[in-house]
């Protein structure tokens, strides 16, 4: 019956080859359509999609990064295109990227081109919307241009009139240019202006002096020191310091207590002391152990609280208003 077995093996190879070929093909096609693997969905908004179809490619900086999934018309001018993008690539796409629909080659199908955004912008998230780069069409451009031209013509005409008026000595500028009396007045004004500048310079110097004196204790701020508010602040800080000292004392005491307890337990384990019999009871030992662990964690917490307190104090010290106060405290 050997030939029969050989037949079976060959048949198995045949079936396996066919199946693998099929699965590989399906896998590759699916990969091209971004059906498997990590992808995200984005929305792109257009007012004209130029015959874009589901399945068309999406490019970012010229790389194929995804495909068009779905096209929905929201209103008469808004079309939302759902696109699937590879997750790997999507982290390079910024939030302020723009998209445009272009054609792929002369007879090619349409593609969506995502135009990179600015460097500073955040990366895009799934479900975000990219807006289209509104392309200015030539007719619009010409229209704008003609309006600009008309405006320019009007402007030139007005300018011409003004220039003529000035030449004739009409209006303010004309008068300035033509009337000698006004020229005298202007001169006088300039002299006055110079004088004003000088005196204002003096005033500024004096102001500076006043300001420097403000820095000393014996002036305005000195009086601020004596106000009740300052006293209160001082008191609070004193209290805080005292309490921190107390906390550290408590901590020390706790630590000694714990080390004592540890010693006791060690003694107990070694068979010394009165609670020697306790070692026979593992449950109890375990309980004590657990208590100690609790204690340890409590101490840790208290330590952290202390540290935080110190930090608070530091922050207070750094505050500009109280900086001087603390300097004095140190003295």
């Amino acid at each position, binding site marked *: 019956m050997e030939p*029969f077995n050989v*037949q*079976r093996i*060959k*048949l198995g190879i*045949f*079936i396996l*080859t*066919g*199946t693998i*070929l*099929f699965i590989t*093909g*399906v896998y*590759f*096609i*699916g*990969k*091209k*359509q971004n059906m498997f693997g990590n992808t995200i969905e984005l929305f792109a908004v257009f007012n004209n999609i130029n015959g874009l179809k589901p*399945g068309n490619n999406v490019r970012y900086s010229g790389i194929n990064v995804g495909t068009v999934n779905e096209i929905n018309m929201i209103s008469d001018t808004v079309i939302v295109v759902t696109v699937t993008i590879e997750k790997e690539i999507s982290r390079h796409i910024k939030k302020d990227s723009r998209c445009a629909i272009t054609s792929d080659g*002369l*007879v090619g199908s349409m593609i969506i081109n995502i135009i990179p955004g600015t460097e500073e912008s955040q990366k895009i998230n799934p479900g975000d919307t990219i807006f289209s780069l509104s392309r200015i069409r030539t007719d619009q451009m010409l229209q704008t241009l003609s309006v600009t031209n008309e405006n320019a013509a009007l402007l030139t005409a007005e300018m011409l009139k003004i220039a003529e008026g000035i030449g004739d000595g009409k209006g303010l500028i004309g008068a300035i240019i033509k009337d000698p009396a006004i020229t005298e007045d202007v001169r006088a004004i300039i002299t006055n202006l110079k004088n004003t500048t000088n005196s204002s310079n003096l005033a500024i110097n004096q102001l500076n002096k006043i300001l420097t004196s403000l820095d000393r204790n014996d002036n305005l701020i000195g009086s601020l020191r004596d106000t009740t508010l300052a006293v209160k602040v001082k008191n609070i800080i004193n209290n805080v310091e005292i309490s921190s000292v107390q906390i550290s004392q408590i901590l020390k005491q706790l630590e000694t207590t714990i080390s004592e307890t540890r010693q006791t337990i060690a003694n107990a384990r070694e068979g010394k002391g009165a609670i020697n019999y306790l070692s026979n009871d593992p449950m109890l030992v375990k309980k004590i152990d657990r208590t100690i662990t609790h204690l340890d964690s409590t101490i840790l917490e208290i330590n952290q609280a202390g540290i935080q307190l110190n930090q608070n104090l530091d922050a207070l010290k750094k505050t500009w208003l109280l900086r001087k106060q603390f300097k004095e405290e140190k003295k």
Partner: protein
Amino acid sequence: MNTFQNFITSIRAFLFETGELAFFAGRFFKEVFNRPFEWKEFARQCYHIGNKSLFLVAITGFIIGLVFTLQSRPKMIELGAVAWLPSMVSISIIREIGPIITALICAGRIGSGIGAELGSMRVTEQIDAMEVSGTNPFKFLVVTRILATTLMIPLLVIMSDAVALFGSFLVENIKGDVSFTLYFDEVFRAIKFSDVFPATLKTFFFGFAIGLVGCYKGYYCKHGTAGVGKTANAAVVEASMLVFILDFTAVLVTDIFTS
């Protein structure tokens, strides 16, 4: 008047044949779920239908891919669309050429083979002998063969497609300097699931039709040894016709669902 009567007779014969074939198919579906299933014979038939046809199918596929690309190339160059050749060729092969060519070759090779084998078994009373031996010859001979063609022909089509694409790639590689990666990247970009699945699905029907017609013709073979030759011939003709009709139907149906 005589021709008219002949016409009527042939119409009647055709309708009778269609009805009988449908009845035969119905019997297949009834018996296929009846236990016991003839695994050993099924495996043997799969081997004969699958492995033994592979060489022929692969050679044909290879040449089709080669020739098809060679023939389309000059025109595509003229149009300046030579870069589109891989996608064009692959879509034609996957959607239509691969399945239909493979099915026709199998109708020729397997359809006639089954027709002749069952026909001679009928004529030499081997089918009767089976029945007397307590084996349901329909289950043993017909069910296994129809199932084997139904399952093996899709596999043959897939392999033929692969070989044809490879043949097409060779032409592109030699004449157009297209790399393997680029070629198959283009191919897989062009092919959609909507191309692959209907094309694969219809090959199951092709396989079923080939097996069904071959078995039907063979199982009801008459008129001695001369009848066996006629049976084999009729099996090929009818199976090919049925494949074309099925293909046409499949394309129509696919068109409705994809557009």
